[in-house]
């Protein structure tokens, strides 16, 4: 198993030992593999996920059978929803004990079927090495995803060989189809086109092709939540991101557009709202590597099952004669004007104590190499709205599953991948408590992770929904937490509490300048809301833009 990991170029693995995985852990010290002992298996899965998202390589996590395996479940589902390449190795009870309700036996394969790309139970020791290698191939090929390998303990003990394993040739996806030429024709003739870029652009390493396509055609770019940082925020063609909490102007732009060039995305319901009212005036070109995504939510005018990089490269070939950046001038002017009110609101909010001021301070202190990992909730939306991501793949968050507790362990993966880059976590006071035990892991490895908690004493997003849709009946959303200064001190880390009237800028600068992990607990307005908001299942016409309380 260790040799297979080395042959796959694995450097880091995140895990937690236990009875059924002991033979693997016994062998581990003999190999140049860096194991990160997390404090919970869920954190191991998220850390491997963060590592994979940051590097584009396959992340690896390890757990024992039974509860170790069940604790991985949320992490695997998170990776599956966001197409993250992951290999999870679980120990299993020995083959003679299988099916007998043995101690710590659980059918992890059955349990994880709906949210793994594939899974293996290795019952033949000679199949162990090839299965491990095959798992990596599956995890990273096509649309990436998590693969589980369940290895009975006696199989781990048994002698095995590589069984003549040969790496499969990865077949490049076809790059030419009539659809690509037709797509180019539509791009030429559209008057109000938009490029809608998703996570597939980052996964496919297609950031340059996206930029070239936008600059060649002059077409403005919007991204999905996971597409943020696939295109530089400070580029004049970047508009922002649409959806439930996306910018109002971007939602309206989609509503007005006559052509959507959607690449590497899947029309998630948080983007479309009511799908039948989404982009009502637009023809849709939908490019995705997964053919089963084409037509799933939005019926495209042209659908192309292809890798984002290859497809855009090919389309650029059909646009050779287009004068650089001259297209859509009137449309761009119109969109520029539509964004003015948001710019003014953002400017004025910079002087007020609150989430925007915190984001601005972090942005300044961390500089352009910042890698931001967010949790799930209001802070996630504020961060996506108010940060400016100029570095590719610098925004990491759990989009599809919306996993609270993701950020802190995922940031560990990012920090192992890029120890020289500033890594910041922004989380709420709900989510941070879900994997707070990982402060011990962070301390043990001296990871330079800075944590900013936007503490409003509520499960803020749920409270916001209760305010809007349940007549302010704040049922079980008020939440307490520890004194984070004392807590972080007990872990041997440094922390500060920041309240209204304190110097936000100085606190953030202090955190950035410390060696190792620091923790800032920002106490913010308990009833601050995220705007705009399109209520679930509704359209841009029902968008709530300001506080109506």
């Amino acid at each position, binding site marked *: 198993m260790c040799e297979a990991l080395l042959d796959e170029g694995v450097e880091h693995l995140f895990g937690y030992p236990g009875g059924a995985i002991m033979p693997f852990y016994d062998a581990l010290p003999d190999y140049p593999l860096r194991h990160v002992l997390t404090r919970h298996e869920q954190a191991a899965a998220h850390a491997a996920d963060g590592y994979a998202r940051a590097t584009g390589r396959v992340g690896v996590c390890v757990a024992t059978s039974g509860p170790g395996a069940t604790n991985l479940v949320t992490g695997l589902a998170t990776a599956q929803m966001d197409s993250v390449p992951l290999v999870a190795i679980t120990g299993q009870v020995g083959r003679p004990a299988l099916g007998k309700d043995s101690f710590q036996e659980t059918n992890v*394969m*059955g349990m994880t*079927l*709906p949210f793994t*790309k*594939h*899974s293996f*139970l290795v019952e033949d020791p000679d199949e162990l090495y090839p299965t491990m290698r095959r798992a990596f191939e*599956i995890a990273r090929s*096509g*649309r990436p995803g998590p693969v589980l390998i369940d290895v009975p303990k006696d199989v781990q003990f048994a002698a095995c060989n590589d069984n003549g394993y040969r790496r499969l040739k990865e077949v490049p996806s076809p790059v030419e189809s009539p659809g690509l030429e037709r797509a180019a024709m539509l791009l030429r003739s559209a008057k109000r086109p938009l490029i809608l870029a998703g996570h597939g652009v980052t996964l496919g390493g297609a950031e340059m092709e996206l930029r070239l396509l936008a600059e060649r055609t002059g077409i403005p770019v919007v991204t999905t939540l996971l597409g943020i940082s696939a295109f530089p925020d400070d580029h004049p063609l970047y508009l922002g991101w649409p959806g439930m909490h996306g910018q109002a102007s971007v939602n309206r732009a989609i509503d007005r557009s006559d052509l959507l060039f959607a690449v590497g995305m899947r029309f998630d319901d948080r983007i479309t709202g009511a799908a039948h009212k989404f982009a009502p005036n637009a023809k849709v070109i939908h490019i995705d590597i*997964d*053919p*089963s995504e*084409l*037509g*799933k939510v939005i019926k495209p005018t042209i659908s192309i*099952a292809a890798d984002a990089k290859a497809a855009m490269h090919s389309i650029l070939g059909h646009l050779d004669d287009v004068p650089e950046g001259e297209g859509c001038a009137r449309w761009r002017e119109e969109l520029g004007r539509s964004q003015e009110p948001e710019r003014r609101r953002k400017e004025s909010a910079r002087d007020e104590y609150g989430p925007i001021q915190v984001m601005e301070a972090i942005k300044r202190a961390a500089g352009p190499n910042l890698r931001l990992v967010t949790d799930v909730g209001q802070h996630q939306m504020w961060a996506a709205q108010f940060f400016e991501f100029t570095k590719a793949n610098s925004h990491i968050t759990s989009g599809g599953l919306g996993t609270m507790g993701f950020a802190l362990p995922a940031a560990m993966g990012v920090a192992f991948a890029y120890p020289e880059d500033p890594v910041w976590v922004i989380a709420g006071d709900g989510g941070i408590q879900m994997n707070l035990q990982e402060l011990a892991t962070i301390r043990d490895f001296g990871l330079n992770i800075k944590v900013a908690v936007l503490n409003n004493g509520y499960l803020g997003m749920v409270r916001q929904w209760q305010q809007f849709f349940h007549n302010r009946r704040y049922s079980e959303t008020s939440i307490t937490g520890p004194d984070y200064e004392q807590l972080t001190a007990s872990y041997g880390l440094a922390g500060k509490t920041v309240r209204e009237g304190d110097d936000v800028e100085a606190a953030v600068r202090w955190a950035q300048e410390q060696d190792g992990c620091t923790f800032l607990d920002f106490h913010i307005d308990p009833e601050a809301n995220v705007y705009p908001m399109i209520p679930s299942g509704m359209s841009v016409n029902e968008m709530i833009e300001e506080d109506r309380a």
Partner: protein
Amino acid sequence: MPEASTGVALNTVEVRFTGGMLALNRLLMTLQNKRMPVAGFTLGRDGGGLRATIVLDCPPESALRYTALISALADVTEAGPAETIEIALVETSADWRTVAEQSGVQAREDGKLVVASGGPEKMDDFLATLGEDVEDVVRLGPVARPEGGV
């Protein structure tokens, strides 16, 4: 919610896969997980692997998308549209030859039994027309029609 049943467009997908029960479990989970409108499911052996014939009650373009999804499963060696037949073993005293001709199913006598084969909708029509004259019936399938017909 599963895709709304169309009641008129039955699309058959034939899936060949290896990996035994684990793979079958994954296939079934995928059908359920993606809320595919499964109107029929038949399983059989196929060399060293298994073959499933899945009847989807949905528009053809949806069936194509579902087929792409099934094809992406790592255990699946082949998945594609197929023409299907059902086989019925019928005991009847009715004029089954005329009914079979009208319904478009092939039928022959084998001892006391009538062996009928044809597409699922034609078979439904055949058996419905025989109605109460059917004394006993065993339906097999739907299964994919072997190349070259039966």
